């Protein structure tokens, strides 16, 4: 090797010497308010061949810690104290030039978002070859052969073709495989996997994580796995490090942390994680008030086509979906991206006219509503969006947001309106002090509460929740789910719950439809579907839920 690598080789006779040792690491960012520390006194060890998971919610400092290890902190970030020892050499103070010699060869990275992590104007082959060129690994022909070998190794079909293609021609899962090929190309001792699967569908996530596991075993590479998903950590890691607010809450062998969590925060995380929660075997108890027999929603052979490419081709997004939802219950529509679940929801709310089929909401046929009738129908059914950052007008105050639906219908006097807004805000658990604020001054969970308040202020019968908790941290997600449950009990609401997360669905719904490529492949009471799935696709979905291995261990 021609590159100067200043790391002493590991003496073969000292087994289990740590590969990576982080001690008392402190990292801060220079912001408009001066210097702010976001990682405090982090200590951890990664031994050769081991998987260590850094688990935490947003703002926990997990990504910053990982970036500090590989020397890729944002420009305004700085390691303030502590050491990052790779095979005993402290690399925390190394210059970028020094780090360039070990990045890619000794430490590599699997990034979070495969869609934007590949250069859109370079071929796949060129981007895999680049890591070999940078570290001068052989002649052109040797590199080309090695690229094909690597692409084959990560399970891409037709590797010669893939090498010539551009990133946009590959699916998300395929792109993540390419990024893994780049990461393993030089057989580094340590791979930093920064949320490697959080942008992927659950079945793809499982396959990608399996691949990383397999390669790790084959090459003896250690993995520092950054994840928000305790289930993923439970399945894949030997060792778990729980972070909160930039500080380590606890760390230890995976089985130990899961079985005997020592910190309060870990216990809360474990209880809130739907995939690891323990209280699910108990069937939900419904209040007698809502045991009526009539259906709140009835969908009959719904078909939705979209024209693409100049009206010639037709894409069938939803293909013959039928289900009914009893008043006061929760029905879930589950599926991966492109399954047609959101399209179904939007047809039910009346945002688009289906190509064929019937939709009855509260006995009204939505598909024939127009103009003023459609507007009046809005009082019956309301939609809560996935992203509470996008679904609230940034210029309005919280009061204006929640008040607006009332202005659209009831000619209520001002005081009554205000009273109603106050009451609904209390109902969703928000303090009155938020009324005068703008959405940006609120946290994600608070914003989603505002969105729910806006949906409920018209006293609708049905609430459609389109991935309404997917963007939230797991502890916040648990709070919102609890709130939804409470509201359902109290107000007799019917929920249509759109989600990709089977664990959450199992926790909160009564009945479920599983969609795959626009078709309904399974439906029925939730426990029936989970315990006796009727299709191989549903079985695959269920087995892909992370966290099952961790549970199985004890």
């Amino acid at each position, binding site marked *: 090797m021609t590159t100067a690598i200043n790391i002493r080789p590991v003496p073969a006779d000292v087994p289990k010497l740590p590969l990576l040792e982080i001690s008392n690491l402190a990292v801060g960012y220079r912001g408009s308010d001066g210097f702010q520390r976001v990682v405090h006194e982090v200590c951890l060890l990664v031994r050769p061949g081991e998987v260590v998971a850094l688990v935490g919610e947003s703002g926990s400092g997990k990504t910053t810690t990982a970036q500090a290890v590989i020397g890729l902190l944002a420009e305004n970030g700085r390691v303030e104290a502590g050491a990052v020892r790779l095979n005993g050499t402290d690399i925390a103070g190394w210059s*970028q030039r020094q780090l360039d010699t070990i990045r890619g060869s000794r430490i590599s990275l699997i*990034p979070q978002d495969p869609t934007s992590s590949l250069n859109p104007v370079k071929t796949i082959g060129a981007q895999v070859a680049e890591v070999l060129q940078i570290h001068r690994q052989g002649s052109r022909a040797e590199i080309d052969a090695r690229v094909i070998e690597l692409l084959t190794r990560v399970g891409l079909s037709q590797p010669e073709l893939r090498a010539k293609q551009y990133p946009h021609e590959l699916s998300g899962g395929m792109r993540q495989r390419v990024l893994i090929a780049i990461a393993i190309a030089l057989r580094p001792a340590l791979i930093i996997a920064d949320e490697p699967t959080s942008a992927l569908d659950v079945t793809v996530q499982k396959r990608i994580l399996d691949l990383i596991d397999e390669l790790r075993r084959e090459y003896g590479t250690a993995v520092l796995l950054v994840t928000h998903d305790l289930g993923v950590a439970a399945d894949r890691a030997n060792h778990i490090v729980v972070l909160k607010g930039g500080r380590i809450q606890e760390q230890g062998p995976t089985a130990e942390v899961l079985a005997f969590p020592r910190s309060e925060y870990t216990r809360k995380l474990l209880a809130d994680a739907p995939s690891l929660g323990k209280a699910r075997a108990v069937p939900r108890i419904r209040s007698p008030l809502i045991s009526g027999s009539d259906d709140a929603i009835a969908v009959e052979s719904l078909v939705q086509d979209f024209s693409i490419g100049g009206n010639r081709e037709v894409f069938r997004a939803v293909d013959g979906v039928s289900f009914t939802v009893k008043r006061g219950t929760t029905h879930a529509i589950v599926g991966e991206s492109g399954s047609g679940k959101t399209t179904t929801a939007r047809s039910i709310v009346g945002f688009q006219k289906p190509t064929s089929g019937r939709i009855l909401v509260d006995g009204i046929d939505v598909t024939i509503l127009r103009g003023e009738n459609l507007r009046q129908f809005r009082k019956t059914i309301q939609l809560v969006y996935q992203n509470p950052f996008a679904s609230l007008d940034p210029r309005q105050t919280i009061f204006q947001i929640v008040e607006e639906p009332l202005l659209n219908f009831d000619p209520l006097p001002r005081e009554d309106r205000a009273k109603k807004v106050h009451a609904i805000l209390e109902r969703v658990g928000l303090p009155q002090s938020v009324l005068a604020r703008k959405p940006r001054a609120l946290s994600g969970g608070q914003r989603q509460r505002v969105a729910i308040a806006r949906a409920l202020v018209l006293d609708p019968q049905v609430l459609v929740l389109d991935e309404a908790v997917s963007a939230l941290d797991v502890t916040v997600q648990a709070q919102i789910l609890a709130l939804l449950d409470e509201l359902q009990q109290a107000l007799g609401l019917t929920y249509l719950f759109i989600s990709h997360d089977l664990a959450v669905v199992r926790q909160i719904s009564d009945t479920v439809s599983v969609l795959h490529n626009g078709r309904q492949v399974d439906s029925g009471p939730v426990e029936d579907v989970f315990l006796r799935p009727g299709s191989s696709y549903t079985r695959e979905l269920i087995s892909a839920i992370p966290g099952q291995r961790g549970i199985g261990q004890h």
Partner: protein
Amino acid sequence: MSRYVIGRIGQAALVLWAAFTVSFILLQALPGDAILIKFLNPELGLGPEQIADIRASYAADSPLWMQYLHTVANFLTGRFGYSIHAGVPVGDLILANLPPTLWLATLGFLLSVVVAVILAALSALSPFSWLRSFIQSIPSLFISTPVFWLGILLIQVFSFQLKLIPVINPGPWQALILPVLTLAVPISAPLAQILMRNIDQVLTEPFVAVARAKGASHRWVLWKHVAKNAVLPTLTIAGILFGELLAGAVVTEAVFGLNGLGGLTQRSVNDQDIAVLQAIVVFSAAAFVLINLTVDLLYPVFDPRLRARQGALA
């Protein structure tokens, strides 16, 4: 040829035709009558009958729609009418004035590209953030500078103070140095700004972090990843830059007293010489449309993402 290409050419032709029509209507609506301005001059001693004859020879008395069709047909067959002021065919006038402007514009454009690239490269490579902010503020200074004032200032400094370039009878190259410099400054500014903004934006893309994680140095990343992604979008302002270049040429030629399209434009406005001005407007609109068409058709060659999208449309 794919349907996309044909459609795009059709669209360009439509815009060009509409631009022609707009300029025709605009200029026909003129209150002044250029023919009268020129020929009523008592020194010429023309009688009313003679003037009527002249008007007929310019087809000035037929109804507007006839004039319109007449002009369209003439333009399509390469006859752009006669300059009322100079009495020579407009085509000849433009051809005679084109070469000096073409020289000026080409050199000015090349220099502006060089300046913009140097500024963008300096900003991307500067090791200190204060230096980078300083370099990044230079284009906004350029953009705020009146072109004509800059030209005068350069004459003042280089010809009168430093006496480097003679005011009277400079050599052909000496005569071009200051005008080219004057023209390049305002053109380089938007180019440099777009380049800098794109570079900064591309540097925040995750694929850059991935490249750094491969062990690529900052320079390697700039050359192999950022350069192409940052340069590509500048193609989209090529048409606008052409307009700026033309406007810059008009002003620069006025300041330095050069002959060329700019001077011709200025004279035709002063004399209300409609035929000349209309031909210049239509010519420049045609050039603008052609440039944008070329960029649109060439873009997919450089950007694989568009290649796929057009394939789907074809």
